[in-house]
């Protein structure tokens, strides 16, 4: 049976009834919902009208009519209802109308669906859904968007001021902005977001201007943090998620960036004051607020660095002043300083870890600050020396026996950390080595484990080369004890060789130990025999080794046969040699003693002082004053006595500072030479600036080389034909193989 052709007007009439019914449903008027039959009929009508043979193929007309249906409804019903409402009411109406419209589109596009399948696809026209939505967009949205936006923004500002608003309404309105873009965010961004962001900026700009004048830094920060939290909250409730980043940036900019300087530099509550008053929480907040802002933390880190530097420098000044006032116990001031440095470091490291979340910027600030004041000289001592003395005080007997092992280890750990900030590490090493030598050789070390412990830590921090000599020294001592046992065995086995005096020898490996001058002291004959015996023994163990005796480091136990009683005197070798001279004469002049001992003025004066002008007067000096002069006469003091049976008469240590500095300077010259040669050997040709730069870098682990010193070494190397200047460019050097 042939299908009956549907006439256009007839068909459209039928469709119109369906459309009207739909409209009534949308308006909330009483209507029965569409039955499946009704739906089918409407669909089929369209189908038929589209599949009829031309000229009864009405696809185009139907397509146009579809659109018209929306346009007509919108113009007659929707727009008027919107126009008569304002602000929040208008928004509600808009939301409702949009929902309705979507329903209408859904239904109508189902009725007209057949158009989508062939006609639209063939002609590549916009689909039914798109047409439907664009009707709303073009007629409704375009008209109301500005007012809608204004209304929304007004509500947002209202909420900012603390009033309650209908958040779901805003969400629905903004959903329209998003959906109307039909897959693109353009409408949302251009019609709403841009303005909203600007409005936000203005809002916070005025707030900030107000607050910054009145509020203290912590209060301002609290407000800022609160505002940011609220804005984020706003996004999660009704703004589109893509707005969050931009919104937060705007707020941050107005509240935190624009007024950063003024905020951080507030007189009594800014960054500096917070540090001063240990306001940990406020500083943590400051970190949280500024760390997302590019370069936001730079000024904070700067203030942090300045603050620490100021505190450190003040400590240095304090120590300097204190040592200027007291002449006695001057050493202890500097030791107090090191302790204070450690405390300062602990305090601010805690800040870096806690408040500033371990951020590298703050680690750097701390490091740079410490590098500034840790390298200042205090009362003539460099910081390298101070640290070495501090270690010596902990490690020597009577130094820190009250502290527990853990406490000592902890302190040593912290001292080694401080060393990282000192540029003259090689100077520290040399002072440390000298003091270590004294501890080891005069048995003044409190605890072997602690000695090993600090060497391990130094090795970890500064590398094996730094500690290799020191470790060698410790090993030497162990070996020396073994050696001594073997020596005593030897003496037992060779009784004829026995010198008649108990002799303990410590053999040191040259190179590990600091360099000591050995003088040709004229030994008393008893001692000479001792030396020869040991030499014979040593040659049975190892040939090809040269023994050089360092008398300045020895100790002798001499029995003084005084009138009242015998007393054992524990003295260094030089004074012992001097005392033994009095076995042959009761009175000796300064020059006689000097000639007989064959020592320099310096050493003679020191040893005679310790025997005649110090606590125990073993010798009587004429004239009886406290200074040694070359005209003095010395007489053995028979009447000397003491309640003890054994007394120690040490020599005060000669000032080693000058020698240490000289030695280190010399080593540095060699180190610079070696570095230059090493660099030039591998590069063959290198410009002056580059060479200096690489030298500084290579040597930086141990010390900061002086540019002038490097230049002098270069000149020297040129003279020694290691390098030459390039013929064409005198600023470039060539390596001469």
């Amino acid at each position, binding site marked *: 049976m042939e299908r009956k052709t549907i006439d256009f007007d007839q068909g459209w009439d039928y469709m119109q009834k369906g459309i009207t019914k739909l409209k009534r449903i949308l308006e909330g008027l009483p209507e029965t919902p569409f039955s499946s039959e009704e739906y089918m009929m409407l669909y089929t009508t369209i189908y038929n009208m589209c599949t009829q043979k031309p000229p009864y193929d009405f696809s185009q007309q139907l397509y146009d009519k579809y659109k018209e249906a929306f346009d007509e409804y919108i113009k007659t019903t929707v727009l008027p209802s919107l126009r008569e409402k304002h602000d929040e009411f208008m928004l509600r109406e808009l939301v409702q109308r949009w929902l309705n419209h979507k329903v209408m589109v859904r239904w109508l596009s189902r009725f007209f669906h057949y158009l989508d399948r062939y006609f639209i696809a063939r002609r590549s026209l916009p689909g039914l859904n798109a047409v439907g939505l664009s009707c709303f967009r073009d007629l409704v949205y375009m008209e109301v968007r500005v007012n809608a936006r204004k209304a929304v923004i007004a509500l947002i500002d209202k909420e900012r001021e603390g009033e309650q608003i209908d958040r779901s309404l805003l969400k629905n309105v903004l959903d329209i902005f998003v959906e109307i873009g039909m897959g693109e965010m353009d409408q949302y961004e251009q019609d709403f977001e841009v303005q909203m962001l600007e409005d936000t900026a203005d809002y916070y700009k005025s707030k900030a201007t107000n607050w910054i004048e009145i509020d203290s830094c912590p209060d301002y920060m609290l407000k800022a943090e609160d505002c940011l939290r609220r804005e984020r909250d706003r996004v999660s409730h009704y703004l589109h998620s893509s707005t969050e980043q931009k919104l937060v940036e705007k707020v941050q900019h107005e509240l935190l960036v624009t007024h950063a300087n003024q905020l951080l530099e507030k007189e009594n509550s800014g960054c500096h004051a917070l540090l001063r008053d240990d306001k940990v929480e406020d500083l943590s907040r400051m970190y949280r607020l500024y760390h997302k802002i590019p370069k936001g933390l730079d000024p904070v880190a700067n203030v942090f660095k300045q603050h620490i530097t100021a505190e450190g420098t003040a400590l240095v000044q304090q120590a300097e002043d204190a040592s200027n006032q007291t002449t006695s116990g001057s050493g202890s001031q500097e030791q107090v300083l090191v302790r204070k440095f450690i405390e300062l470091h602990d305090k601010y490291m805690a800040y870096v870890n806690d408040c500033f979340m371990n951020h590298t910027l703050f680690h750097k600030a701390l490091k740079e600050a410490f590098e500034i004041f840790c390298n200042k000289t205090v009362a003539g001592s460099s910081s390298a020396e101070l640290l070495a003395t501090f270690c010596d005080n902990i490690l020597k007997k009577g130094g820190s026996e009250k502290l527990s092992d853990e406490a000592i280890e902890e302190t040593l750990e912290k001292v080694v950390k401080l060393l990282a900030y000192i540029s003259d590490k090689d100077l520290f090493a040399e002072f440390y080595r000298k003091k270590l030598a004294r501890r080891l050789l005069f048995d003044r070390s409190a605890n072997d484990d602690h000695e090993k412990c600090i060497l391990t830590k130094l090795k970890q921090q500064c590398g094996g080369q730094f500690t290799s000599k020191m470790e060698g020294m410790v090993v030497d001592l162990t070996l020396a004890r073994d050696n001594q046992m073997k020596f005593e065995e030897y003496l037992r086995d060779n009784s004829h060789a026995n010198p008649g005096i108990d002799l303990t020898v410590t053999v040191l490996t040259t190179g590990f130990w600091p360099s000591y001058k050995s003088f040709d002291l004229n030994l008393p004959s008893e001692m000479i025999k001792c030396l020869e015996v040991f030499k014979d023994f040593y040659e049975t163990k190892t040939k090809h080794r040269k023994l050089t005796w360092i008398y300045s480091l020895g100790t002798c136990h001499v029995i003084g046969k005084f009138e009242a009683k015998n007393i054992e005197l524990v003295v260094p070798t030089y004074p012992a040699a001097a005392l033994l001279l009095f076995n042959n004469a009761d009175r000796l002049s300064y020059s006689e003693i000097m000639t007989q001992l064959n020592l320099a003025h310096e050493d003679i004066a020191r040893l005679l002082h310790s025997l005649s002008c110090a606590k125990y007067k073993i010798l009587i000096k004429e004239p009886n004053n406290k200074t040694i002069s070359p005209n003095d006469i010395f007489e053995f003091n028979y009447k000397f006595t003491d309640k003890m049976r054994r007394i120690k008469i040490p020599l005060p240590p000669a000032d080693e500072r000058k020698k240490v500095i000289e030695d280190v300077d010399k080593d540095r010259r060699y180190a610079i030479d070696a570095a230059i040669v090493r660099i030039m050997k591998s590069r063959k040709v290198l410009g*002056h*600036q580059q060479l200096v730069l690489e030298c500084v870098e290579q040597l930086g682990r141990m010390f900061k080389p002086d540019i*002038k010193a490097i*230049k*002098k070494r*270069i*000149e020297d190397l*040129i*003279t020694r034909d290691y390098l030459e*200047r390039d013929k064409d460019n*005198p*600023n*470039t*050097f060539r390596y001469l193989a």
Partner: protein
Amino acid sequence: MHTLLGRKGTGKTVTFKAKVSREALTQLSKLVESRVSTGVTIFDELSMLMSRLDLTVDFSEFSRFYDFVFFMCRDNGQKNIAVSRAVTAWKLVLAGRFSLLHPWCDFVEKNQRYNISEDTWQQVLAFSWCTRDNLEAYDPEGAWPVLIDDFVSRCTGLVSLWPNKASYIFIRILMINYHC
């Protein structure tokens, strides 16, 4: 000797010239050694030599002569020359070529403890050439010997109160005053 130094040679004459220079050098050193005993100083010799040479030659020619003067001033077996000798030689050889000659010589005499190395000697000529118009051409970051660095910082240090430009003007005045 003067013909060799005064003319630019072709390729063939250059190698020939080099060979003859070496021979001439050996001869001259022997001459110098023998003359020492007769009481004639090297500076007399040097003056005589200079009078016979055409010293209006260009810079590279002159520098060869200048380098040779160092060689003349050396004692046998020594790598460097004594300060006093260097100063006398400079006053002879660089007269009219180094505007800061006299302040330089004063400075060196007062401040230099060690002997003058060959490299320093050569760099002094380079320095005189570099700063012939003004001291600004001197680059403090350059590879100048430390002695020259110290000299310049002494010169500019004297007028450190004045802004940079003025200090260079002062140096120019200094140069003009000393210009021979």
